[in-house]
């Protein structure tokens, strides 16, 4: 499975989410690298540090994209935002060794649009004055929030370019498409009043994995689910969070996504409780269907303060909780593989089931 690819490979028609054999068919000279999420995370964080040195208003959009609000930073950096960004990109290439694209504009919508204009290593500026004319020639699909379905709907109404939207009355658009119509009206002329807000609290914490070959057996899925539960739990513990909702996600061989959720009586951050809720849901779903993906997530997040209270009847819950916390301490000291459950350990010896 191709998770991402360089721009040269893209010229040959390689796309992300493409099966590897197809990608190699299209581009036989491609070099295939296994993903190293830890490394990406580390580099991503280093870059974020550098962004935060420019402005406190950094809103991460994904692991490698972020909005920066540079309003009012000229005095601080003794340079215009364009100069500040140019220096930032140059330092990024020389110090970290990666290239990036920049889009500079008066608001988030136009900035994102600008950054996509000239990839890779692009540097585009859309000024407030020229927004209208730049947008006019673009297809409606470039507007944030207009997906495939909505695009088809607009297409049926004869609207294909943003320029066409600019000529339609705001009230008319609202009547036709409701609240999203109002958004179309303002975005089509380059108006967007969303602010760059660094606080975008997580709504859920989850982890999933795609298999190299589809799996139907409950016994094979179980250790994988446990492993994912431990990952989710580790992230919850690290950020001082807990949650009441546990969601199991499965994708069948036919690409149908199945999600099943369970609501817990108390918020939890323990791998043990996340896993046991997940496995009870999995038990009902593992009915012989073949799955290509499994994932588990915790939602309905709150602080860890009231998480995992002592239970009156289940005395062993308290013991399991202490055992898990002891394992956590060992892992902190000696690394994740220092201590493992028999369940995941046995499964990992014969591993090879995960797709790269």
């Amino acid at each position: 499975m191709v998770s991402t690819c360089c721009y040269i490979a893209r010229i040959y028609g390689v796309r992300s989410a493409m099966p590897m054999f197809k990608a190699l068919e299209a581009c036989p000279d491609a070099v295939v690298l296994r993903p190293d999420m830890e490394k990406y995370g580390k580099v991503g964080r280093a870059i974020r540090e550098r962004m935060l040195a420019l402005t406190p208003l950094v809103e991460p959009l994904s692991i490698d994209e972020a909005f920066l609000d540079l309003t009012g930073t000229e005095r601080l950096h003794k340079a215009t935002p364009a100069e500040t960004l140019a220096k930032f990109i140059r330092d990024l290439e020389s110090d970290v060794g990666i290239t990036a694209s920049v889009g500079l504009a008066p608001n988030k919508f136009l900035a994102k649009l600008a950054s996509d204009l000239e990839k890779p290593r692009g540097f585009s500026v859309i000024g407030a004055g020229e927004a209208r004319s730049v947008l006019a020639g673009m297809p409606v699909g470039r507007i944030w929030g207009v997906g495939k379905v909505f695009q088809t709907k607009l297409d049926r109404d004869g609207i294909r370019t943003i320029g066409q939207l600019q000529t339609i009355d705001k009230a008319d658009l609202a009547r036709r498409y409701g609240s999203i119509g109002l958004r179309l009206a303002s975005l089509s002329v380059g108006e967007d009043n969303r602010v760059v807000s660094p606080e975008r609290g997580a709504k859920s914490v989850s982890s999933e994995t795609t298999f190299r070959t589809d799996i139907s057996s409950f016994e094979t899925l179980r250790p994988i689910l446990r492993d994912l539960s431990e990952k989710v739990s580790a992230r919850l513990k690290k950020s001082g969070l807990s949650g009441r909702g546990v969601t199991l996600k499965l994708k069948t061989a036919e690409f149908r996504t199945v999600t099943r959720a369970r609501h817990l009586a108390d918020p939890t951050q323990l791998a043990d409780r996340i896993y046991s809720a997940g496995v009870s849901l999995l038990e009902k779903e593992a009915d012989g269907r073949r799955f290509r993906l499994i994932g588990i997530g915790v939602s309905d997040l709150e602080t860890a303060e009231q998480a995992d209270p002592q239970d009156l009847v289940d005395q062993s819950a308290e013991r399991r909780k202490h055992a898990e916390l002891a394992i956590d301490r060992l892992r902190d000291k000696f690394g994740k593989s220092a201590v493992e459950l028999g369940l995941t350990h046995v499964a990992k010896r014969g591993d090879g089931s995960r797709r790269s």
Partner: protein
Amino acid sequence: MKATLERTDLLKSLTHVHRVVERRNTIPILSNVLLRSDGGSLNLKATDLDLEIVETVPAMVELPGATTVPAHMFYDIVRKLPDGSQVVLETTSDNSTLEIRAGRSRFTLQMLPETDFPDLTAGEFSHGFPLTAGDIRKLIDTTQFAISTEETRYYLNGIYLHTVDAGNGQQFRAVATDGHRLAQAEVPAPSGASGMPGIIVPRKTVGEIQKLLEDPEANVQIELSETKIRITTGSIILTSKLIDGTFPDYGRVIPQGNDKEMRVDRDEFKEAVDRVSTISSERGRAVKLSLTEGRMVLTVNNPDSGSATEEVAVEYDAEPLEIGFNSRYLLDIANQLSSDTALFRLADSGSPTLIQDNTVDDCLFVLMPMRV
């Protein structure tokens, strides 16, 4: 089938039986109520395969027979018919619909064959004994709130009924817990209960029994085996499966050595808890009780909205103690206490607390504290 009966009788009975029928059913016949007319009566029966209620009402039967019709719709029809009217139920000649007539109203309902209607075979009952409706209501009312809704712990999804030999003779005891709180109530055991197996009655069944027993003086016959329970009162027979599981050894949960005693006026306490908890968020609901000699201060802090505090005079002379509880749970328990004074037996801020009536000792509650 053709039968004529009083709307009042029919409605009362349908009110009882239609509740058993789930709103959504994958098996169509389970949405229906079975009607069987015979001799001088009409028999109504509804089931969800775990619970079944059968009730007999007097009727003038011209043509004996049986059929099934959608329970909720039938109930709604009868409910809206004029008070005091007579209802005629008659199957049409092609045997596909049931006609319901009252006054100038006329309805037809699609039928499903009564032969498809499932039967909850009761099997043999090993024990049988009478109990007053009042006693059963007391056992249920006192413990019901503590039943767990957690599906994974299905064995806590009901009330555990069993007998115990106490100092005051054999007792028939009910216990329910959800891991946060535990409620226990007992009445003197009737002789027939001796040697009965401990059984877990599911939450839905508990609720239905509670609704059937309106008159506390009424006599109720209980029959049970390891897998089923049957309650007979008047012309109503309720049969239910039991939860197939082992109820935990709850005796270990009830604290024995809690040496700090606190006595408080039940109503004063209840009202104070209710008042201060107004400020708590939907979730948190933690109320802090700060105990010092002769007084208790209740505090709720909600970082989003503010705080509340109230002082209540208590009987307390142990060392000062701060302990937090879920305010909803405190109210649930206070609502079940029958004497004017509540007795709290505490150990420390992290251990289960025992709550009882000061004078009566036929019920007790255990509550797990919250971190505050």
